[in-house]
């Protein structure tokens, strides 16, 4: 059994592989990561990743840059550019040039930014995508700094835009911020829990000229990459 354990800033994920097939996966909030390995799994099978990779049991701990690269290649062997939108940071990996950039200085373009907006509207972050799809136009939001974007959001609401239109505009601002980090490419793969928000995928597709790919379970790509790395170690690669 090859196990990938991804303990990030908001959620923890585990994924089991057997003979190259995914046989099990589970996601819990980060602080409950222990539930993912409580049935007596042997550390020797585990490759960990994510912000807390060195704090959880593992045979090897590797960064999300490597797991995202391996996981993305599993879904699409021709993947060129990966955008991993995490809870606290966003990473853009350019596989064709072996380079990456990480935005971890501010909340702009990270899941935390959307959490803040959802919190303001007092709605679950999971409903942002659906509300986005109801808007036919967007309110202009120029600021991507979380704090200033909220005050801009409020002034657009006061100015007569609906909540749906403001959320649409927010996703657009988010996508523009991400786009600054993305190099030109035919295809861009979006991964990470935040990508489950279909509003984000729509906004990024509108902003980038590239074809956008989203794997079936975008939040599990890093855990998958970690399990694949464990498999590589078995193979002595």
């Amino acid at each position, binding site marked *: 059994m090859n196990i990938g354990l991804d303990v990030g800033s908001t959620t923890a994920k585990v994924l089991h592989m057997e003979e190259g097939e995914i046989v099990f996966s589970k996601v819990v909030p980060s602080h409950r990561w222990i539930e993912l390995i409580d049935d007596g799994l042997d550390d020797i099978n585990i490759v960990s990743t994510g912000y807390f990779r060195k704090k959880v049991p593992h045979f090897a701990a590797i960064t999300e*840059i*490597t797991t995202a690269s*391996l996981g993305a290649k599993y879904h699409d062997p021709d993947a060129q550019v990966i955008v991993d939108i995490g809870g606290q940071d966003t990473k853009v990996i350019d596989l064709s040039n*072996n*380079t*990456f950039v*990480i935005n971890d200085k501010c909340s702009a373009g990270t899941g935390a930014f959307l959490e803040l907006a959802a919190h303001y509207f007092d709605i679950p972050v999971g409903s942002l995508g659906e509300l986005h799809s109801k808007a036919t136009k967007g309110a202009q939001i120029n600021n991507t700094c979380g704090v200033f974007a909220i005050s801009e959001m409020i002034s657009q609401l006061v100015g007569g835009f609906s909540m749906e239109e403001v959320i649409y505009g927010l996703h657009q601002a988010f996508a523009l911020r991400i786009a600054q980090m993305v190099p030109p490419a035919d295809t861009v793969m979006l991964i990470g829990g935040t990508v489950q928000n279909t509003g984000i995928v729509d906004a990024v597709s509108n902003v980038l000229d590239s074809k956008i790919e989203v794997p079936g379970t975008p939040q599990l790509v890093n855990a998958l990459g970690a399990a694949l790395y464990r498999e590589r170690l078995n193979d002595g690669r």
Partner: protein
Amino acid sequence: MKETVGITALVPPELIYACGKRPMDVNNVVPESSLSPGSKLCAWTAIWRDMILNGGLDIDSLVVVAGGDCHNALVDGQKVELSGMATHYFFYPFDRDTDYLRSQLEKLTRFLGGIKDERMFSLISDLKLKGRALDELRVNDRARASDVFSALISFSDMAGDPDVFEKMLNSVPETDVEYSSRVALIGVPPIYPDFHETAESFGLHVVYDELPYEFLRLGGSDLDSLARSYRDYSFAGPIKNRVELIKNELQRRRVDGVIHYTQFACHHTLEDEIFREHLDYPILTVQGDLPRPSPEQLKLRLEAFAEMMEVMP
């Protein structure tokens, strides 16, 4: 006691010693400083400026390297001058004009009171040869990059005492180095004092430190030869010459990847795109601001870069 001359970037140290004074590169105290500067763009200049203004740096005069190098230093240097410090401005020619640089060296010599001990030229030259030998040692995996970097970065002022410095150079341990990838460090030097140790902890062997290597300029035995040698100081000249020089070193040192260190609010950051376009290697760009032990963000990037070169070559 010899008078101490603060320098803000590369000023021929052999000339300062030959004029009977001791240079002190004011940047060398910055990485270990815990001072929070008042107004700041780049922390390097802001910290040495505040340290001088607060009397925390024991210098008698200051030579500010302005032309062809750093405008932040030019402004912060003037703040120091306005506080009453004897200050001289040294300009490198962007077009590498040897006559211009010679005239700058003449002015500097006058500011320093004239040449008094010509033997210092050959003495410093011998030390630089030792520096080059140390540099080769790490290229050949026979010395730790962190030890070699500490020695090379001090070649801007020879630690204020060539005799003591020579002992320092002789004490750099020779040892076999194990690593996963060979990297070059280009750009201004990192403000984090443990940068090289941190890189080593992730299996990255730094085989080229761009700026400190520039300090090892040979062939300065009088003002004419100094002018010929220092006109090629790459940081003060056109970027295309720098790119060529870096390319040769990357090849000669067989590097697997390049780390471009940039400093917050430094114009050299704008050079990143040029390096990315012209250097055909995996490149990691990192940025620092205030001096402190390497932060987690830097560690993540170095670790990921090391993995990238090892796992997905």
